[in-house]
């Protein structure tokens, strides 16, 4: 078992606290089947690869929250991806979450340094909405634990100029952004799925996205299969069947050529 990064410094009144979904990511990414998949995919030593294809993978997490998932992947890059020369960055719509992630990554790096172990190269966190500002075709590995809870409406994105009356209102608005997913809990995830073909690297691109049962995962998988034979999708992690259905599951979506 790889150690879980410390998040004791995170202000949970305004940043999503690591929960069952976050831990499902840690378990899934460090499972035998996924580390085998990732190590093969991002292998440095293959005679058929060009230097661009064997170069440092670019790893992006959207909606980092506390930063527990990104820090885990960043700190344990050598165990999970089979290489430590990964470039990592995180994105969140919540400034407090961005700051928390910076701290969490720093603490995880110090843990690794203290044990004379390696970690990736962290660029920093960006305040932003999904991937609209990331250069196309660059992301090799994308992680997204989206706001997946079905809600009657989607909270507006933070606008730094907006007048917010109380700190409590601001904090509950920021927290709502971490879970409220609008119709079927899919409004944000659908937007991200639509951008995947242009955002993911054309040879190595791969994404892990968490869904809950109300997101209708089978329909999501069907939709991805309709992209054609150059794409594949599989459920690679889940919380276990309860009453016949999986409460949470993680999809792996990847280019097959």
């Amino acid at each position, binding site marked *: 078992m790889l150690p879980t990064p410390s998040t004791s410094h995170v202000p949970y009144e305004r940043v999503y606290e690591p929960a069952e979904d976050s831990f499902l990511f840690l378990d899934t990414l460090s499972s035998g089947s996924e580390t085998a998949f990732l190590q093969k995919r991002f292998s*440095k030593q293959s005679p058929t690869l060009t230097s661009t294809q064997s*170069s*440092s993978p670019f790893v992006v997490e959207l909606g980092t929250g506390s930063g527990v998932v990104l820090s885990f992947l960043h700190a344990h890059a050598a165990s999970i991806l089979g290489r430590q020369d990964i470039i990592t*960055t995180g994105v969140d719509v919540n400034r407090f979450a961005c700051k928390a992630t910076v701290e969490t990554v720093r603490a995880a790096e110090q843990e690794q340094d203290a044990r004379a172990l390696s970690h990736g190269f962290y660029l920093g966190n960006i305040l932003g909405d999904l991937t609209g*500002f990331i250069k196309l075709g660059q992301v090799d590995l994308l992680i997204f634990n989206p706001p997946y809870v079905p809600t009657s409406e989607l909270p507006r994105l933070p606008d730094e100029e907006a007048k917010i009356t109380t700190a409590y209102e601001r904090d509950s608005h920021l927290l709502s952004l971490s879970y409220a997913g609008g119709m079927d809990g899919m409004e944000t995830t659908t937007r991200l799925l639509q951008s995947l073909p242009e955002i993911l690297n054309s040879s190595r691109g791969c994404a892990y996205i968490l869904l809950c049962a109300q997101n209708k995962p089978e329909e999501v998988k069907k939709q991805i299969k309709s992209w054609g034979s150059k794409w594949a999708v599989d459920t690679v992690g889940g919380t276990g069947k309860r009453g016949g259905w999986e409460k949470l599951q993680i999809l792996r979506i990847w280019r097959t050529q």
Partner: protein
Amino acid sequence: MKLLTLNFLTCAVKACKSSSASFPLHPKDCELVSDTIAPNPQLVYNVLPRIDWNALVTTASELGFPTLPATAPTKEELENDEKMMKELHTLLLETSVSEGILVCGNCGHEYRVKEGIANFLLPNHLV
């Protein structure tokens, strides 16, 4: 955020996507910080093939770093050029932007960097 981040960022405005002027963003009034990082030649070798060298040359020159060669050095060249290796180590791994503005060369939109975090949230009229 590390200076290298600029090699992965473009303007978030949709209409700018098709314009080559939206990459790289241009740093303005930036405060830079340098963290000491132990030499890591392997990381530099493996990062170089995947970055946009021309964009790095532009960014480095706009921030007042020594002029980089017109084409990226190969691994073999770097192994024999300690000075270039040191310059790239400083530029790619050690340098961060802590405060300042990133400007789109196409639409002129300014993205503010505050406490090392760049803000790419667009005002409503640009979404």
